[in-house]
């Protein structure tokens, strides 16, 4: 909230800041040109580079971790530019303040509801300043297309197009409005003269950037809405796509670390002799919270590390076991000081006055979850000539830079961050939870000037994650004589990540929702769709309980609580219709439905499930309906929703991180079974034609999956799932509730 008031406050006085800002900003602009252009290349509108060979390169202030956004954002730029798609490329923007993502700042503040243009430079200036101020170059919150694309790449490309047209008009001495642009060529229809972008770029780059370029109407789009082959796909089928873990530098060393099993613990001592004797080992380095081995190869480092028997403290341990965790959760739910985040009418009075037979209560729990991206965490660092250079697949290049500045004690100008693609991340590799960077700084400093690549073994990566927090909620509702809810009271635990997703989409006249902060010593972070993961499960399961308690069909019940024609109701109805809701299923099978909005996108999912002979769930089919506003690359959009559903089902079914003696018990995939191909159901996704504001797509497929599956199991078996993962709830493991 402080950030928002900072921005609005600055906007009010921005006129007075403009002059000083301009000089400051011009230095960044010069810096940007130096950073990304070479011989025969020109930077237009800050983000688009055009070469004399006609190649158009769109600079992307995001990390590619599989979402396909390099292609989608380049398409949005190419559309407004009227570029020839075969000449368009995408490249990671440098991790420098010159490429801070002002479009994200703007998107977050306005939530994408304003017209995507920069009508006045003052607003733009404020967002630019804010983005640099808060080191904004993050990939998260499903923002790339809806904020960076809509408010950023389209606008800068439209500006660049206007500059190219202006350059041609000046060259030919004709008014710009009579010129046309198609496939990277500017044409004067009156004379038949043509000029390719590559021949105009140098002159265009000298022109000032128009502040209010005309954007195309949706009806004029030719590329956006098509699904050209993603840039990255061919190299991801032949082994040539380079991830951070594949980086090779001259003279590079390799490091492996083992950190304190209890998060926050310190290294008390370690006998380093056994490891030093192994071939290839260069150094054993005791660190504050870990011990590291540096060797000529990672396999040697890792093998030597296995010989060590370090002693760690368990400083700051708050809970030792799962039973401790639940006790702490119950205590916080019962008596924790909370913040009321929603008040509507008088929920406690409505519940007090309701007949006991019409009052319903339930406690729900969710476990810690691990990201388990397929590329194990790794990072490469070099101290040389007073400069720290970093290479890695972090989701926020500027946040990473800030953490490295703080940890190294170097000036920001002496820290260089090179962003590399990541083999998945799902919210893991973000500076606030990037504890591994703290290990690498002293390791690389000790080995200077040689570069060092640190790879976390899968075991280290599992036990030192930044987990979706383990949380719980208590919900109470009262129903009227028709079975419709009159009151909803909820107390929920909120983890250290963003407090979001607590609003319920349904019209219930009396609501009181209280958030209680809850943290343990276990490191937590942002897990794909963040707080929506638990809230969607809680809200949509409890609404389902109320529907069944009232004897109504769960779809009808929800529809009755949603305004006719609303985005929420439309996705619900379309998912149900396409899934054949109400049609007969084989005995022992059931359908469940759930609805959730996250990051501006509405998603409803219907799951069909039965129990196998082993009494474990078999998921047969998932049908989703999605309203995300518009689509840039429909096939990539589909991939994101398919993947989100699978990750959501996987987590709901079996995933959990648990504690033993305060340390994480799961060390690798065999004890953290994620969904695999044989168990993956048929998935159908329907995108709605929508003129609503654009929402994100990387995360919104996830939240409805768990409650839709749990609701389907209730329909199939009569068993209500109030704790995840589902296999624990079914087997009675993991305690009560």
């Amino acid at each position, binding site marked *: 909230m402080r950030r928002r008031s900072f921005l609005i406050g600055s906007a009010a006085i921005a006129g007075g800041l403009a002059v000083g800002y301009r000089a400051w900003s011009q230095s960044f602009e010069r810096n940007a040109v130096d950073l990304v252009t070479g011989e025969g290349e020109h930077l237009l509108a800050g983000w688009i580079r055009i070469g004399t060979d006609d190649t158009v390169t769109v600079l992307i202030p995001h990390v590619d971790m599989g979402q396909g956004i390099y292609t989608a954002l380049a398409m949005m730029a190419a559309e407004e530019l009227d570029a020839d798609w075969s000449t368009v490329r995408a490249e990671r923007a440098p991790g420098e303040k010159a490429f801070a993502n002002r479009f994200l700042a703007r998107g977050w503040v306005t939530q994408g509801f304003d017209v995507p243009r920069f009508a006045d430079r003052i607003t733009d200036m404020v967002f630019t300043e804010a983005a640099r101020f808060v080191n904004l170059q993050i990939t998260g919150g499903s923002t790339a297309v809806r904020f960076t694309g809509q408010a950023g790449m389209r606008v800068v490309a439209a500006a660049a197009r206007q500059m190219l047209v202006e350059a041609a008009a000046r060259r030919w001495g004709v008014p710009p409005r009579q010129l046309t642009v198609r496939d990277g060529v500017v044409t004067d229809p009156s004379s038949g003269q043509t000029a390719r972008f590559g021949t105009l770029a140098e002159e265009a780059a000298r022109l000032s950037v128009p502040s209010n370029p005309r954007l195309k109407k949706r009806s004029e789009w030719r590329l956006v809405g098509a699904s050209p082959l993603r840039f990255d796909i061919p190299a991801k089928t032949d082994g040539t796509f380079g991830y951070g873990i594949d980086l090779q530098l001259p003279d590079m060393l390799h490091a492996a670390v083992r950190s304190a099993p209890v998060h926050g613990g310190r290294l008390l001592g370690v006998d380093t002799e056994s490891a030093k004797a192994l071939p290839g080992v260069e150094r054993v380095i005791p660190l504050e919270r870990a011990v590291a081995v540096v060797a000529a190869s990672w396999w040697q480092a890792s093998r030597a590390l296995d010989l060590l028997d370090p002693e760690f403290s368990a400083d700051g341990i708050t809970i030792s076991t799962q039973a401790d965790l639940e006790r702490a959760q119950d205590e916080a739910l019962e008596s924790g000081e909370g913040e009321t985040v929603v008040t509507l009418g008088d929920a406690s009075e409505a519940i007090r006055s309701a007949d006991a037979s019409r009052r319903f209560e339930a406690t729900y729990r969710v476990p810690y979850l691990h990201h388990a991206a397929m*590329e194990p965490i790794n990072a490469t660092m070099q101290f040389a000539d007073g400069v720290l250079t970093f290479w890695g697949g972090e989701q926020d290049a500027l946040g990473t830079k800030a953490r490295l500045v703080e940890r190294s004690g170097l000036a920001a100008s002496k820290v260089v961050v090179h962003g590399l693609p990541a083999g998945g991340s799902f919210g893991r590799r973000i500076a606030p939870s990037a504890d591994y960077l703290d290990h690498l700084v002293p390791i690389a400093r000790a080995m200077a000037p040689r570069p060092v690549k640190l790879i976390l073994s899968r075991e280290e990566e599992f036990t030192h994650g930044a987990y979706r927090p383990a949380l719980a909620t208590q919900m109470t509702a009262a129903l009227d004589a028709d079975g419709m809810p009159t009151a909803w009271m909820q107390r929920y635990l909120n983890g250290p990540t963003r407090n979001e997703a607590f609003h319920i989409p349904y019209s219930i006249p009396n609501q009181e929702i209280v958030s209680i902060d809850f943290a343990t010593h276990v490191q937590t972070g942002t897990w794909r769709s963040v707080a929506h993961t638990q809230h969607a499960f809680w809200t949509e399961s409890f609404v389902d309980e109320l529907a069944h308690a009232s004897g109504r069909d769960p779809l009808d019940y929800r529809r009755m609580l949603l305004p006719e024609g609303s985005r929420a109701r439309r996705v619900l109805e379309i998912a149900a219709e396409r899934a054949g809701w109400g049609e007969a299923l084989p005995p022992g099978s059931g359908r469940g439905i759930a609805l959730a909005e996250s990051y501006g996108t509405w998603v409803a999912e219907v799951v069909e499930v039965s129990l196998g002979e082993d009494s474990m769930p078999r998921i047969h089919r998932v049908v989703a309906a999605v309203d995300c506003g518009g689509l840039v690359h429909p096939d990539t959009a589909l991939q994101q929703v398919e993947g989100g559903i699978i990750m959501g089902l996987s987590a709901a079914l079996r995933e959990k991180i648990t504690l033993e003696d305060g340390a994480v018990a799961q060390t690798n995939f065999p004890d953290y079974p994620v969904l695999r191909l044989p168990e993956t159901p048929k998935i159908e996704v329907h995108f709605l034609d929508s003129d609503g504001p654009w929402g994100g797509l990387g995360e919104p497929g996830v939240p409805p999956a768990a409650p839709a599956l749990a609701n389907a199991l209730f329909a199939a078996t009569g068993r209500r799932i109030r704790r995840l993962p589902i296999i624990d709830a079914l087997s009675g493991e993991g305690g009560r509730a």
Partner: protein
Amino acid sequence: MQIDFQINGDNISIEADPAKPLLWILREDLGLTGTKYGCGVAACGACTVHLDGEATRCCVLPVEAVAGRAVTTIEGLAAKGEPHRVQQAWIDARVPQCGYCQSGMIMAAASLLAKTSNPTDAEIDAAITNICRCGTYPRVRAAIRALSEAV
């Protein structure tokens, strides 16, 4: 120890610790980084290569075990610069997201299809047990199906 084996059609002889897993020989000694480290316990399949044509998880395979045998990695799957038909099917079905697991997926699928030109769903289930955290499974199945139908 001196170990002789064939890699992507070439006979090579390397000096290596016999206990070093083939995965790390490929990645660190031979510069073939298309084969990925995923779990180190043969659970995820990111390190799948072909050993005498058979899909094999090489993160737990000591290099001495491949002496005298033929190893094919993702880099060696394509012949004469043309994508292997499984790679082309992956492009056509637009399978990869982050792509990290896909070398292993493709090697597992190529091995399956070499033995069984028209696999049933049950045969696909049995052969493709690799982990993909992005959730590309429906497209992996679709790509294999498309190749089966092409037979």
